[in-house]
């Protein structure tokens, strides 16, 4: 376990800037490192297997130069960017990857990754899109098969007791991060959106114990700001989207005078809200958490008695988070070629607007090259709602 952190924000900045450096160091000292994509990455199982889970990220400032020779440009721009980074050796410390089935862009490119990266271990985790009881049971079987596959690779038995310990650790990590999120409720928030994004990115590159230590350290540091920080007025913005893993967009929002106080992002609140129940059947509890508690646009939710109930089941949690964090503007940021989010836009936008919160919908690329036009749109939106 790493030493207790005392300068969390500086460490987060370091891990953010040198993404993957800790995993690389752990690899050098003999650990196995397994990468994953998306909030569906089964980190508890990876932790229980004794491997270092590291979530892969892209770089919005890095143009895609190698991926286009192997992967279609109609694929999610985030996936293309991360794949490009992997081809360029950014993740050459990986022993393997688990690719959760989130969307067509993960499903249909899984083999593209596997064949080109040639990692010693590859596993496609077939997460269903549904949440009914048969889907839950099916997903439990899928997770059990993943456990078997990982055991074969690592040579280490993954026991229920080990899984239970991993579940407890990751729940603690989630709670620590939620505590930090809580410091954004003040007006102005004690931690800026840019700082928060860097902590979120740093955390997903660390073993769970180190993540807990980092997040607690940041929380302690930020809490001390309470009396010292002056406030500037500004809209309290919530950013809704999926694979936004860079502070550049957040910087644009905050440079325009707003405070990013909440998110519904894949590396953000999606990861940290909804614990895994502690039960005698950890795999069943994991299936429950990833299918039912984690609400993604790739999960079909339609069991309501009518459409309004369905909308509330799909988006009610976003509204409640917006209320809890006193959000007064939402930016819905969707990548081009994203069917799961793209088909949600009219319903999600109107749902939030009906709650009295204005929404700016932006469809864009995973690239800093488009930020100037995004900046113009955001500034105009913030002026309009001022």
């Amino acid at each position, binding site marked *: 376990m790493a030493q207790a952190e005392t300068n969390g924000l500086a460490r987060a900045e370091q891990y953010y800037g040198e993404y993957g450096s800790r995993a690389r160091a752990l690899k050098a000292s003999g650990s196995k490192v397994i990468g994953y994509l998306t909030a569906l990455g089964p980190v508890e199982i990876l932790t229980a297997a004794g491997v270092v889970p590291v979530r892969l990220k892209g770089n919005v400032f890095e143009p895609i130069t190698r991926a286009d020779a192997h992967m*279609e440009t*109609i694929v999610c721009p985030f996936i293309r960017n991360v794949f490009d980074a992997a081809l360029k050796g950014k993740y050459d410390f990986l022993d393997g990857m688990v690719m959760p089935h989130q969307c*067509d862009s993960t499903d249909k490119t*899984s083999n*593209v990754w596997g064949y080109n990266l040639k990692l010693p271990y590859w596993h496609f985790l077939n997460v269903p899109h549904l949440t009914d009881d048969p889907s839950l049971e099916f997903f439990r*079987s899928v997770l059990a098969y993943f456990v078997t596959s990982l055991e074969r690779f690592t040579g280490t038995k993954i026991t229920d007791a080990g899984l239970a310990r991993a579940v407890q650790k990751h729940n603690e990590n989630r709670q620590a991060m939620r505590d930090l999120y809580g410091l954004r409720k003040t007006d102005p928030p004690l931690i800026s959106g840019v700082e928060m994004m860097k902590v979120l990115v740093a955390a997903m590159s660390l073993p769970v114990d180190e993540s807990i230590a980092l997040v607690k350290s940041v929380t302690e540091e930020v809490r001390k700001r309470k009396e010292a920080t002056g406030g500037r007025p500004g809209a309290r913005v919530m950013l809704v989207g999926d694979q936004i893993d860079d502070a550049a967009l957040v910087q644009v929002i905050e440079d325009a005078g707003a405070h990013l106080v909440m998110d519904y992002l894949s590396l953000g609140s999606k990861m940290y809200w909804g614990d895994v129940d502690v039960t005698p059947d950890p795999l069943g509890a994991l299936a429950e958490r990833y299918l039912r508690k984690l609400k993604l646009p790739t999960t079909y939710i339609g069991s309501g008695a009518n459409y309004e109930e369905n909308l509330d089941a799909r988006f009610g949690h976003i509204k409640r988070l917006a209320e809890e964090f006193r959000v007064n503007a939402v930016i819905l940021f*969707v990548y081009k070629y994203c069917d799961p989010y793209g*088909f949600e836009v009219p319903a999600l936008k109107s749902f939030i607007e009906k709650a009295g919160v204005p929404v700016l919908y932006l469809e864009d690329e995973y690239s800093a090259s488009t930020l100037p036009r995004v900046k113009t749109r955001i500034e105009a939106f913030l002026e309009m709602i001022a």
Partner: protein
Amino acid sequence: MADEKKPRTLATEAAARIPKIARANITATVKAKEEGKKVAYAFIVCGVDEIMRAMDIVPAWGESFSGICAAKRDAEKYLQKAEAENFSRSLCTYATCNLGFDMWREELGGQMPPDAPWGGMGRPDMVLGSGQQLCDPRYKWPQAMQHYLTDVPVFVGGLYYPPWDPNMDQKEQEKFYVKYATEELRACVRFCEKVTGKKMDWDRYAAVVDLSDRTWNLFIETYELRKAVPCPMDTGDAMNTMVPISFMLGTQECYDFYQALNDELKAKLARKQGVVENEKYRLLWGAGLPSWFALADFQYFNDKGAVFPVETTYRCSEAVYRLDLPKTDDPVEHIAWRWVRFWNHWYDKARMRPGSMPEVERLIEYIEDYKCDGVVFHSAFSCRSWHAGIMLQSEVLRRVYGDIPILIMEGDIVDISSYNEVDTHNRIDAFVEALEARKSGRN
């Protein structure tokens, strides 16, 4: 105003009958109301055809309607309507075309939008979607539609198969996949019973399943007649003759259609009558939905002496006896096994060729069985489901099978703004030159 293009010359009489059949399918969705039948928006290759047919539910195929709008070059007005609602142009254009149409019909209080292609589609009583490793729009499109047709109930069932992993035996997993698919199909039946107010007649369902099995067998037997040289029917026709197997599976009319096509092809074989007079190149349509507004491009190939005796597109079936399905008295479970084994039945072969993959084994099988000289793919920008991964297939094919001319065309299924006829024909010309060079090299 629609900009209709002169249709492609069809080689078979069967294909020439398709527009009338497809139109009747669409008209049936409007007539259903008068006949007291329920209409379901449905998606092809979702395992629910037999359920709908056994329960007299009239399927309304959004993919078919959007394809027809595209073929008539009359989709733009619906695409724009969807875009005005914030549906991106980069989303599946089958869906956005259909959603634009749905919105328009709702604005008119359920009346058909003016000048709707072939009279338009009837308003659904239900939607049968599907969660798969195939196509996100199959569950997102129904959700999006429900925003405008809020009273229409939606069912989405899960239908998965063990993913390809060269180091794992899919048979270790298939039982829990089949169990899950069976349960989801039963849930679909319960949903349909609730909406229609009728109970499933399980004997009738079993008979429909038997008919659809026999149709799969006949379909494959018929298409395999195209192995002949010269080829009696090519992909240009198959993009029409796919209508019954895709949209009418489980009906006698579907079976009879392939019987008639079978007879017609055998007659052509007897006369040694090919699609083109001087067949120079035989091509595999390797993957991709076609540009429905540019089917005449198949004619362009034909004019160069190139024919497509085989395609993977709309061939989501196999002779059932080749799938080695476990015996079961439960027709629902049978469909589940048929589904899983269909998608997995190239896995063992792929495992035997190091570096290969199931999709490529399928290509190799077709290249060899149908004596193909090259492979053509089409990459449609709005559809990740069928079109992401094509580059990998071509890479792996070359790596494990050897150098073979490959063309990847780019366009879309519905959105004509992506299409440039001159550029497309230039690329085809260059590809044909490569085919010729390779043939000359052999000689």
